[in-house]
């Protein structure tokens, strides 16, 4: 049996008005980067809160690192970055971080050493200024995000759970986060993160689980999911606006079953039996100035849209993913 960091079996959570998560099962291998994908209101945050044992599922079991997630001391091996971030505003950064570390069972001395390392690493402590001695509300938003991030990782958790980690990050912090995720994986840690940004998930994740309206739509490794949905797709870019002839070709359903205008290029899904060579010949024949013509795998985004559809995104916009 594979060594699992997290195993969820058939959990369901009902709130008064609606079912937030319904019979959800998934498994995250140790050392994997795992993406929990879904539109807003899909039940991502509820699922994460159940994993953290903040709320209990109505039914089903959750096993973390081989133990039921209610086991004592287990939370100390978890790092959690919530979607809605916040810190005690009036507290000194260093004291706040020490507090967060102590809550995870790290003693003050070890915490202090690690805090300095992290402050250096994220350049919150430089020759000119040590932001560790400042109060939280004296920090810029970007710096507060860094502090929050340090707080999540200070106790060197085995499993890191990040809820919508990229939302609200500036490009520099987003890059730092990405680097850290890669680094965590290299050190054998498990990273689970939820997002509705498919591009990030596609680049970072080993495996994904897509949920919508509280129900699992699909899961598996990213490569597996992609090859499973490998219809022949073409990325096409044409100079200038497509002429009427070109539009007619693209509208030919014997050749093209679906087309997604991505502004810079079209992502085209070929119809069953449609031949990409024939498409290219006809386009050139119609006088189109082809700049890019590439056979590609469907993006996660495409798969997501196809599986979840527009309805899944419209419904359940309750604010919590």
């Amino acid at each position, binding site marked *: 049996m594979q060594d699992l960091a997290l195993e969820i079996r058939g959990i369901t959570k009902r709130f*008064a008005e609606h079912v937030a998560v319904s019979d959800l099962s998934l498994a995250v291998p140790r050392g994997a980067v795992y993406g929990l994908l879904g539109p807003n209101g899909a039940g991502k945050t509820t699922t994460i*809160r159940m994993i*953290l044992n*903040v*709320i209990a599922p109505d039914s089903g079991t959750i096993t973390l690192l081989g133990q039921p997630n209610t086991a004592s001391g287990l*939370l*100390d091996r*978890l790092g*959690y970055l*919530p979607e*809605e*971030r*916040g*810190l*005690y*505003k*009036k*507290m000194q950064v260093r*004291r706040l971080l020490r*507090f*967060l570390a*102590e*809550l*995870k*069972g790290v003693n003050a001395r070890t915490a202090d050493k690690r805090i300095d390392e992290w402050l250096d690493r994220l350049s919150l402590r430089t020759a000119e200024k040590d932001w560790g001695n400042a109060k939280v509300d004296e920090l810029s938003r970007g710096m507060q995000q860094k502090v*929050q991030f340090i*707080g*999540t990782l200070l106790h060197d958790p085995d499993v890191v759970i990040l809820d919508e980690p990229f939302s609200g990050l500036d490009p520099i912090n987003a890059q730092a986060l990405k680097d850290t995720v890669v680094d965590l994986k290299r050190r054998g840690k498990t990273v689970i993160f939820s997002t509705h940004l498919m591009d990030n998930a596609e680049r970072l994740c080993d495996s994904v689980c897509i949920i919508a309206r509280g129900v699992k739509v699909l899961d598996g490794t990213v490569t597996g999911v992609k090859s499973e949905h490998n219809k022949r797709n073409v990325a096409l870019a044409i100079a200038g606006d497509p002429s009427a002839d070109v539009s007619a070709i693209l509208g030919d359903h014997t050749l093209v079953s679906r087309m997604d205008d991505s502004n810079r290029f079209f992502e085209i899904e070929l119809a069953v039996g449609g031949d990409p060579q024939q498409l290219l010949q006809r386009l050139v024949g119609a006088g189109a100035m082809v700049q890019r013509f590439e056979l590609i795998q469907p993006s996660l985004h495409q798969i997501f849209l196809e599986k979840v559809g527009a309805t899944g995104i419209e419904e359940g916009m309750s604010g919590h993913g």
Partner: protein
Amino acid sequence: MAKLWTVIKREFMERVRTKWFVIVTVFGPLFFGVIMVLPAYLSVRGMKDVRVADIRIIDATGTGLGDRVATRLNGGPMGDAAATQVVAVAPNEVAAAESLATRDVMAKTRRGYLVLDSLTISAQKASYAGRNASSLNEVQIIETALRSAILGQRLEKEGLDPRRVEALTKVKVDMSAERITDTGRGGSGIGSAIFGFMIAFLLYMMIVLYGQNILRGVLEEKLTRVAEVIVSSVSTDVLLAGKVIGVGAVGLLQQAVWLGSAAGLYHFRAQIFVKLGMPAMPAIPLPEVPPMLIVALVLFFILGYGLYAALFAAVGAMVSSQEDANQAAQPVVMLLVFSIIFAQPVMLNPTSRLAEIVSWIPFSAPVIMPMRMAAIQVPWYELVGSLTGVAVTCAICVWLSARIYRVGLLMYGKRPTMRELARWIRQS
């Protein structure tokens, strides 16, 4: 347990570190000192300031009674009677003299005027009008002077030597009241009442201040969303307990500093008064404080504080904005105000039925009962019953609040209705 300690430590240290705490804790005793010294200081100054005597006496008796009153108002024959103006008039001129005097009072050349006429002698009736007519103290001084003047006049009429009259009518009574309990005499009645009232007020202040402090703390964690991070490390029960204990410890520390410095001030009062150039203050006979009272006091404080802290925490977890918090906290604040409203009637009559009832009600008992205990001997069964009631109510409130807190802490949006609250309590 280690985590509970971590939470307590944070709640305690972050509060003790604030400027607010330092200011209130240090200046509190200073404030006490001023309150203690100021009345004595003012009364010393007030004796030199002959403002009560600054009146006009319209004397229509024709017997010189007005002069006698003036003399007495200004501290006897040795005093300076010039401060008081005596106008002797015929009985039919009284009305005119009164309207003139009224104008003078309105123009602030006099503080008031006293009218003496034939009725004053025959039926002991006189009238006073003035700016200070609502000051019971000042009116009483004038009345006493008048009574003594009439008495002196009568005695002289009986043929007594005026000098002997002066000596005989100069009676000053200083009555002390002492309290008797089952165990015998102990301290002064007034002293106990004041002491009791101070205790009640202190408890009330502590509960209000630190209860609201808890509410703000919970709301801060909710609004800044720190709560999300914390509950991924500790359970909400630990967080709530740590908060209540930590904040309570801050309250206890402050109380200890205050009471300690009050005791110090009292101990060194003689030196302080000498420094300020005032005669030594008459020793306020402090009531004996039996150890039982101290034990009960601490118990009532802990339970009462726990009860209200839990309620305030639940309110904080229920709401998502400061405005909502103020509204939702009102019922809790009302419960507290209700208990302090009854403090005065209970102090005036600590054995009344009302006093008994409000010291049985768990929400007012923590404030009222210690006060009654300082004033009178409360039967042991009442004390035990009241304490049990508070303890049970405290336990229920903590239990309910912990459940509301568990659900509410991560809920945002509009305030829950009563029905939703009930569901939160059932759900968690």
